[in-house]
């Protein structure tokens, strides 16, 4: 029986080569995309789960809320970790702090090799007891016990030492401290919420900090992870208010709350201030999931449409089999068997396709997925199940449809009565068109939003601003002299400095605005800057004046606030704010200017109250200023860059000249959206391709079926235009129905998505028209070309063929 099925299946596939090709390629592309998205999603969900204790590891989040202003900090003050451990030893099994001195880079030297390391961290010796990393050399329990010890990854070791065993080798860090390699681990898996190349013992910082690590409860630079006793996290969290009350800074504590963030939630759910690396977003996975399902559905619809449409060719077989005693279920099995066979074949092709696509996919989405993953038992079973299920889904309707054929009608050549209306087919074509149009519209809108995010008016200039990291360099001391030299160049328009990259990150500082009681310190988002900050970033001054080097009191006494801060304080106008007093830790300051709001973090958040503070004291400058920002003429060139490099090397010989462009740094903030946009663009193209493939097959079939009618019409004088109209009209009608469904659906989807952003582009109305037009033009192109071929046929051939 099955051999008979197999034979018939193969001979049919051969007989209907075009339809087979369409079906298999459609299914293969659909399945390949589905599996790719699926492993992408699995990878996204797998973040940090490779740690054996992942479910018991939590990060402490600090919420500072001063009447709606403040921060949700992913990092905590230095003492939090060990105080918690000592306070609640029965709940907190272990703790670790991870710290990068809030510096974007760390200068590392070994022999003649000098690098600015971006992924250099300090951590407590407990780090490798809490997080699981594969040690190639060294002991996870002891590697960070000693001061000045450092654990490096395999590829870092290669970079510095080649194939030599790195154990016992030394690095000079920031030109001051020497660190000894006490461990080498395999590279940190990419599915980690942060990756590092070097992890040094935090105890090494005691000396630079003057004998002990900072013990302030205000400054919160340490990412703090707890290993909590199993299922005790809620109990622990309930103790946090008392903990805050007991330890935190008096002026702050009533505004501070702590909570535990599960390690495994960080990558997909966390959007806090001071994240180590930008995270992803669970809702994007849902969008991708939806697209993946649509893809598969469209491929399945192709199969259903083509196999029911071409069923006339199978009618005799079905009729004969029934006459000779086949039960209906036997025919259903046969057709299901065929579709599963086809689907498994498509699955094989899909896996080859994935193998081809994967390298590009990995580099684009910054993942490290291997095709061999699919050979693991669980994946193998799932993938096979996917193939079988797809086959069953695709085959079910055709199987039922075909198996009810009435043998009497079939065998008397009255097929017209058997396979007529095709209503089901029309519905499916409408579904396909609808999905395609929706995806075109939604994708166009995603692109518009991403484009908007990248180019939106953030309230400051992003273009042609060069950033030089200067923390720890001589330049943080000799900044003014360096600035003066740079300004000599005609293409350097303006130079300033700041403690974080504007638009990416900032700190909060404590202030007590006029009218607040003595102990009511408020923590407001702020940047520490140097002169010419407003000019460099093109931020408009709305009232008062900018900092001026001529006003000797500015550094100590003057501050700038944003318009939103004026509103937040409840002052009537920007002008009224001028001269108001703000107390800071340095004493009393006065507001000298109000600037237009700018987006201090990403456009996911609204622009809030903000403070710009200038520092003059050399120690403060050294501590705070981390970046020089240089506004360059748009016509800057190699010569300008060479000039900058020359000046840099004169001032800071020991460090390589490295720089970033501000606009590129900001684009990083929307990396997720960009990946999503690119992915959905590609998938939409795939979906449209599959849908058109199916349409092509269906059009080919329908014109064939009507070849007699066309012949008769032609004999009686029908011209090509009228024949093409005749055949396209039916599809055109279906398209209009699809558009009617697609428009409201797209509107709803886009609206949902845009709501996620504080700053949204308007909905792109043209995209609705574009989506419809793209679908219409492509569909008409395909159907009319088939119609044209049909018209060209000689009616003698088609009519005699009865």
């Amino acid at each position: 029986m099955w051999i008979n099925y197999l034979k018939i299946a193969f001979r049919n596939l051969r007989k209907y080569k075009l339809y087979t090709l369409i079906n298999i390629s459609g299914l293969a592309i659909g399945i390949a995309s589905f599996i790719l998205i699926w492993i992408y999603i699995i990878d996204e969900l797998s973040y940090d789960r490779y740690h054996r204790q992942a479910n018991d590891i939590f990060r402490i989040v600090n919420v500072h809320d001063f009447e709606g202003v403040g921060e949700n900090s992913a990092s905590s003050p230095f003492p939090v970790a060990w105080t918690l451990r000592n306070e609640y030893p029965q709940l907190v099994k272990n703790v670790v702090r991870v710290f990068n001195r809030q510096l974007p880079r760390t200068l590392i030297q070994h022999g003649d090799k000098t690098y600015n390391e971006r992924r250099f961290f300090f951590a407590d010796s407990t780090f490798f007891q809490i997080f699981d990393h594969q040690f190639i050399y060294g002991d996870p329990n002891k590697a960070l016990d000693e001061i000045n010890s450092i654990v490096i990854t395999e590829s870092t070791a290669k970079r510095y030492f080649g194939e030599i065993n790195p154990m016992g080798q030394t690095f000079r860090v920031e030109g001051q401290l020497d660190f000894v390699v006490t461990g080498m681990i395999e590279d940190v898996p990419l599915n980690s919420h942060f990756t590092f190349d070097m992890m040094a013992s935090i105890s090494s910082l005691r000396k630079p900090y003057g004998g002990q690590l900072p013990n302030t409860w205000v400054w919160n630079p340490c990412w703090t992870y707890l290993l909590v006793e199993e299922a005790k996290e809620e109990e622990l969290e309930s103790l946090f208010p008392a903990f805050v009350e007991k330890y935190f800074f008096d002026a702050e504590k009533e505004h501070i709350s702590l909570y535990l963030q599960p390690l495994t939630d960080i990558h997909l759910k966390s959007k806090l201030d001071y994240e180590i690396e930008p995270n992803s977003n669970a809702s994007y996975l849902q969008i991708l999931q939806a697209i993946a399902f649509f893809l598969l559905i469209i491929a399945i619809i192709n199969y259903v449409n083509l196999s029911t449409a071409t069923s006339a060719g199978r009618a005799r077989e079905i009729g004969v089999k029934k006459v000779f005693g086949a039960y209906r279920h036997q025919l259903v099995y046969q057709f299901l068997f065929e579709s599963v066979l086809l689907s498994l074949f498509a699955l094989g092709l899909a896996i080859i396709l994935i193998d081809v696509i994967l390298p590009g996919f990995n580099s684009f989405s910054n993942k490290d997925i291997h095709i061999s993953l699919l050979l693991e038992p669980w994946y193998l079973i799932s993938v096979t199940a996917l193939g079988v299920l797809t086959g069953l889904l695709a085959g079910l309707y055709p199987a039922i449809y075909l198996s009810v054929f009435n043998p009497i009608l079939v065998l008397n050549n009255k097929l017209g009565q058997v396979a007529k209306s095709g209503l089901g087919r029309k519905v499916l074509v409408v579904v396909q068109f609808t999905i395609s149009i929706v995806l075109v519209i939604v994708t166009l809108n995603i692109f518009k939003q991403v484009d908007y995010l990248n180019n939106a008016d953030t309230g400051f200039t992003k273009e042609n601003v060069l950033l030089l990291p200067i923390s720890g360099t001589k330049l943080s001391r000799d900044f003014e002299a360096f600035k003066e030299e740079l300004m000599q160049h005609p293409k350097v328009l303006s130079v300033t400095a700041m403690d974080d990259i504007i638009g990416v990150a900032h700190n909060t500082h404590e202030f007590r605005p006029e009218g607040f009681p003595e102990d009511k310190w408020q923590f407001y988002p702020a940047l520490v800057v140097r002169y010419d900050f407003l000019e460099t970033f093109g931020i408009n001054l709305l009232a008062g004046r900018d900092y001026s080097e001529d006003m000797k009191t500015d550094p100590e006494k003057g501050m700038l606030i944003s318009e939103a801060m004026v509103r937040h304080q409840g002052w009537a106008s920007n002008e009224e704010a001028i001269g108001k007093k703000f107390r800071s830790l340095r004493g009393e300051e006065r507001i000298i200017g109000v600037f237009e709001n700018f987006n201090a973090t990403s456009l996911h958040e609204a622009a809030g109250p903000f403070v710009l503070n200038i520092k003059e004291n050399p120690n403060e400058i050294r501590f705070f200023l981390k970046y020089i920002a240089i506004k360059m003429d748009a016509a800057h060139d190699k010569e300008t860059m060479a000039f900058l490099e020359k000046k840099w090397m004169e001032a800071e010989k020991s460090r390589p000249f490295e720089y970033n462009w501000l606009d590129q740094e900001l684009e990083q903030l929307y990396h997720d959206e960009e990946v999503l946009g690119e992915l959905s663009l590609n998938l939409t193209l795939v979906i449209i391709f599959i849908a058109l493939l199916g349409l092509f097959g269906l059009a080919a079939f329908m014109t064939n079926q009507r070849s007699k009618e066309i012949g008769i019409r032609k004999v009686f004088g029908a011209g090509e235009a009228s024949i093409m109209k005749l055949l396209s009209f039916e599809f055109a009608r279906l398209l209009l129905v699809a558009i009617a469904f697609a428009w409201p659906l797209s509107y709803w989807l886009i609206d949902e998505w845009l709501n996620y952003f504080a700053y949204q582009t308007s909905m792109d109305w043209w995209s609705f028209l574009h989506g419809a037009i793209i679908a219409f033009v492509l569909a008409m192109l395909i159907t009319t070309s088939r119609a044209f071929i049909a018209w060209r046929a000689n009616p003698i051939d088609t009519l005699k063929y009865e």
Partner: protein
Amino acid sequence: MIKTSELTRIFRADEVETTALNKVNIDINEGEFVAVMGPSGCGKSTLLNILGLLDTPSTGDFMFLGENVSGYSERQRAKLRKRNIGFVFQNFNLIDQLTVFENVELPLIYLGLSAKERRTRVETALEQMQISHRKKHYPNQLSGGQQQRVAVARAVVSEPKFILADEPTGNLDSAHGDEVMNLLADLNQNGTTIIMVTHSQRDAEYAQRVIMLFDGQVINEKLTPSKN
């Protein structure tokens, strides 16, 4: 073996009601060769479909091998059909995607016979129809006469009690037509009951009895002197 009483079949299409068979009473005994004749649209094919258990009567009774099958479901009829009836069609109705051998084998597959037994039976049937040399060919590589011989082989391979033939020579020239009729007559000689619908007086002469239908009613039954 076959007995119908007041057998009526009415087709309804939208507004139009057509009575294809009107109170037909016929009686066919084991070993008979019966021809059903009549003009186009007289109900011949409808009668054959009901006798072949492909269709059910609207009213009236149909006794098949002693069972009243008039109310049987498709499944019940399929079960009776595959064990007892072989079909031969005017347009052969061979499956294009199967070879001669596989076409003939088909009924045996649905009877659930083993591959070995199927093989023997198919070989025998093909030899009987003198078409063995073509067993690996596909239907479209054969002449009309050859195709019909394959169709007859397929009808007899399951050793049915009845063979229902619907204008078996309609698409054949006279020489090939005679060949097929002789095959049917041989089968009848060996005990198979044959019911044949035909337009051809010449073919009807092979039968022992001719039932004349007109507008869905039996108007005449007569015995023919057997050719053989």
